[in-house]
């Protein structure tokens, strides 16, 4: 089966998603309303938008953990049906297994994908080293700091190569310094293989520093509001992007967008 080379890694076409919450009095709720966008292979896209606008829902749809109420979600041109094991998903919660040590958590994805043991060990060591977690291999997740847990969660997914990586506020609860350091690490990791990345964040600086394109969402029900091409050269220096004129320009435009939506909630 010779597929023609595809222009897009993923695509959402007029996607609607309604939730029926539990509880008697709860009314169905429209989370996404006609969301359409696509990502080129190797593209780094950030999704920004007010809390509750359906960003995590978009990622869940792509991971096949939930189905669209209407519209199409495709991955390499094929509709996503059932859990999509071809994407890597770094969820909003770190979702490390509390009964596995850090190293065994990093190994988990490789293990589930039946990577031979020796190869597994080698890659685990390499990735742990890459994000500076060496020495904490035998610690359980509750014995790690918040930033360490985040790192472990990220390399757990990056340790096996998937051509699409979904990341939901991976640096959400971290302090400003750790964030920038992890952003830098992430860009380096990304550069190794250049997977397509869909990155959810509330941090506009982060979105600009990392992405090729930024998609803003309206408040609930979430729709695509605007798309921005970042057009900053790579490799990026996340510690100094703020100094570039293009950065200010984008930042102001994005902030205007978001402010309006937050005011509307």
């Amino acid at each position: 089966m010779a597929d023609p080379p595809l222009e897009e890694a993923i695509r959402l076409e007029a996607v609607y998603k309604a939730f029926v919450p539990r509880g008697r009095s709860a009314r169905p709720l429209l989370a996404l309303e006609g969301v359409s966008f696509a990502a080129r292979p190797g593209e780094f896209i950030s999704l920004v938008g007010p809390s509750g606008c359906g960003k995590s829902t978009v990622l869940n749809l792509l991971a096949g953990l939930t189905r669209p109420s209407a519209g199409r979600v495709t991955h390499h041109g094929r509709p996503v049906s059932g859990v999509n094991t071809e994407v890597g998903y770094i969820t909003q919660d770190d979702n490390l297994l509390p009964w596995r040590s850090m190293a065994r958590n990093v190994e988990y994805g490789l293990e589930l994908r039946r990577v031979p043991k020796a190869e597994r060990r080698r890659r685990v060591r390499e990735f742990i080293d890459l994000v500076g977690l060496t020495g904490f291999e035998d610690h359980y997740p509750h014995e790690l700091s918040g930033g360490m847990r985040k790192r472990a969660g990220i390399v757990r997914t990056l340790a096996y190569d998937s051509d699409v990586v979904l990341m939901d506020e991976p640096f959400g609860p971290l302090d400003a310094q750790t964030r920038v350091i992890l952003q830098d690490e992430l860009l380096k990791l990304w550069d190794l293989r250049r997977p397509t990345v869909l990155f959810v964040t509330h941090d506009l600086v982060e979105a600009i520093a990392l992405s090729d394109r930024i998609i803003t969402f309206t408040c609930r029900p979430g729709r695509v509001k605007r798309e921005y091409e970042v057009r900053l050269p790579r490799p990026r220096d996340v510690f100094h992007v703020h100094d570039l004129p293009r950065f200010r320009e984008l930042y102001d435009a994005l902030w205007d967008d978001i402010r309006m939506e937050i005011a509307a909630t």
Partner: protein
Amino acid sequence: MSGRVIEEQAAAHARRRRTRRALVWAGRIGVATGAVIAWELASGPLVRPFFVSSPTAVAQRLAEWFGSADFWFHARFTLTSTALGFLAGALLGVLLAWPLALRRVAYRIVEPYFLIAYSVPAVALGPVFILWFGIGLAPKVVLAAYFVFFVVFVNTVEGIRQVPQGLIDVTRVMGGDRWATMRSVLLPGALPYVLAAFRVTLPAAMIGAVVGEFIASNRGIGYLTRAAAGRYQTAGVIAGTIVLAAIVLLLSLSLRPLSRVLRWRPEVRLRGEDAL
């Protein structure tokens, strides 16, 4: 400096562990000694020994028992029926919980029947039990298993259901199939609940076995105790209960290694981690 702090912290930690252990054992022995002394003193001057016997009388009876082959035969019988009943009930409870825990419809269909089955007053069914299972080991094992099964079943179901959805989701997305999800997520996630159920049902298994001996038997510690009660030999009754308790302790000791798999769990403390 840092090296010293680390060493001191480690030493303090080890010290705390030793102190905690010592305290636990001193406390346990203290409680037992206190109770025995109070009992010895009360027996006679305060209460007629006919009602409460006395530690010396009970010790005498125990010494007699330990010296007789007859007693060991009875003890082995009760130990066997308790252990077999516990194993059967626990195994059945765990195994049946798996297919049902995450199948809501099936679970809701069978749930009321489980409740009905659990409310059967087993003791009242004595004669029928003899009809079904005879008077040998079988009815005791069945009764012991009966007292264990439901608790283990309900707890395992609850344990499986409280596993965070996110852990299951990431496992599936990373390529885990049903079996991998079960083994790597549901099983370890439910384990604390399952083990807690094991701990509380072990004594229940023994009670089941003894009830079985009460209904119809010519063997077992329950039978011995009942015979003593029939003759108003208080010392024998108390000695019997002590032996039964020893059996439960012995069996629960054999469960201890299981709890080592829960090492990963942080210890919850109301006060700081420096507290004992």
